[in-house]
């Protein structure tokens, strides 16, 4: 492209010659509705920012063909282009999160300070980080093997197979029990109830543990205290 043409049309005006694009065809890009050219940002192959655009595009390019999406069948007014409309919040979110963790690092140093170096001879009662605290509390409620291996194993298995349990077992049971509707969550009252109750139980165990060793609740085997 000559300098004169660039001066006349301005940067970003250049588009690739269609005949050159015909050599290799991407598979399966069947009928996606792309943002019309006149609506796009004027960043064409001759623009200084084009490499940035290519960098952004590399990510979805590596992710393979987009398939036929819901948006392809929706009217224009119900959709928007991925770039820049859908993309722009993410850099802002990234910066905000970086600032947030930076501020936490600067002002909440307590959690980052090291304890004395590991010494196997030391006597200490370990207390796991918050994300394993509920499990730690759960261990106190029954035989070690069942509470540490069997039940968590079943829960993880159920979580992995949840879409199938939700799709098959839930509706059948609901029909048998004559349950008609429950507004949230989703449409499956059985799995929805189990899911929410499970989360509530985890939250309960977490707070129980957080309440500390002086907070004890009665249990079948005797009082069980926090961690």
């Amino acid at each position, binding site marked *: 492209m000559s300098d004169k043409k660039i001066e006349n049309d301005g940067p970003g005006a250049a588009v690739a010659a269609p005949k050159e694009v015909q050599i290799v065809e991407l598979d399966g890009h069947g009928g996606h509705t792309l943002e019309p050219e006149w609506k796009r940002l004027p960043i064409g192959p001759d623009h200084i920012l084009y490499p940035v655009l290519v960098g952004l595009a590399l990510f979805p390019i590596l992710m393979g063909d987009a398939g036929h999406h819901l948006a392809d069948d*929706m009217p224009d007014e119900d959709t928007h282009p991925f770039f820049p409309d859908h993309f722009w919040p993410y850099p802002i979110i*990234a910066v905000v999160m970086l600032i947030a963790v930076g501020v936490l690092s600067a002002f909440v140093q307590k959690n980052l300070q090291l304890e004395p170096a590991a010494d*196997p001879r030391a006597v200490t009662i370990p207390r796991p980080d918050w*994300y394993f605290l509920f499990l730690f509390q759960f261990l106190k409620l029954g035989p070690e*093997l069942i509470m540490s291996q069997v039940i968590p194993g079943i829960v993880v298995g159920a979580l992995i197979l949840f879409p199938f349990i939700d799709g098959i077992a839930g509706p059948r049971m609901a029909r048998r029990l004559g349950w008609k509707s429950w507004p949230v969550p989703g449409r499956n009252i059985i799995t929805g109830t189990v899911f929410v109750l499970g989360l509530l139980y985890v939250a309960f165990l977490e707070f129980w543990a957080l309440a500390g060793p002086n907070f004890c609740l009665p249990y079948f085997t005797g009082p069980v205290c926090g961690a």
Partner: protein
Amino acid sequence: MAIPHPREIQVAVVDWLDERYPFTKAVDEALYQRVPNFANAFYYCFGGMVFILIVFQLLTGVLLALYYVPDATGNPAPAYTSVQFIQNTVYLGWLIRGVHFWSANLLIIMVLVHMARVYWTGSYRAPRELNWMVGVLMLLIILALSLTGYLLPWDTKAYFATEVTIKIAGLTPPQQLGMFVKELLQGGPVVGPPTLQRFFTLHVFVLPALIVLLMYVHFRFIRAHGISEPL
């Protein structure tokens, strides 16, 4: 011979690429595809936030690995003193370590929030079941990353918490299998230098590679299926 304008070089490069692969078309396909307006709801951002936090973890993890010494021999062990060195001496070491620590905590929260959103909007249903399963595996790997990372400072808290974790893993029935798992994790009869070496390897090489691989699969599924419609 006149020196070409950088813009001309760029255009020439793009043209060259276009002759061999529909480059500009691929860029357009990737960037200007349309997205449903409902995907602008704030709760559709949670997955992106998880991705951003994983990137933070990988970047700060690489920086920490420049100074961390995975050696637990001696008292205090080089592992412990290297973390102290990062925290107190390395320029902005405290910040890098802080970002790694807090991002890890935030990551677990955001993964759970993202999972709750996926559940709430029914995005795990057909044809997205496999993606849900990949997501659950990623959650387990993130928890494993937290667990293995916990031991690396080699302080009292880390040591005894890991001892309990390994003891629990050793309960796996039958007894021989439990013992094997325990030996495999511990690398000896007690938690010691080989344990740190193993946890370090898992934390720095194996699990991040797995999570990057699963993230790739997760995104490919999302790209193939598109953003799910809310219930």
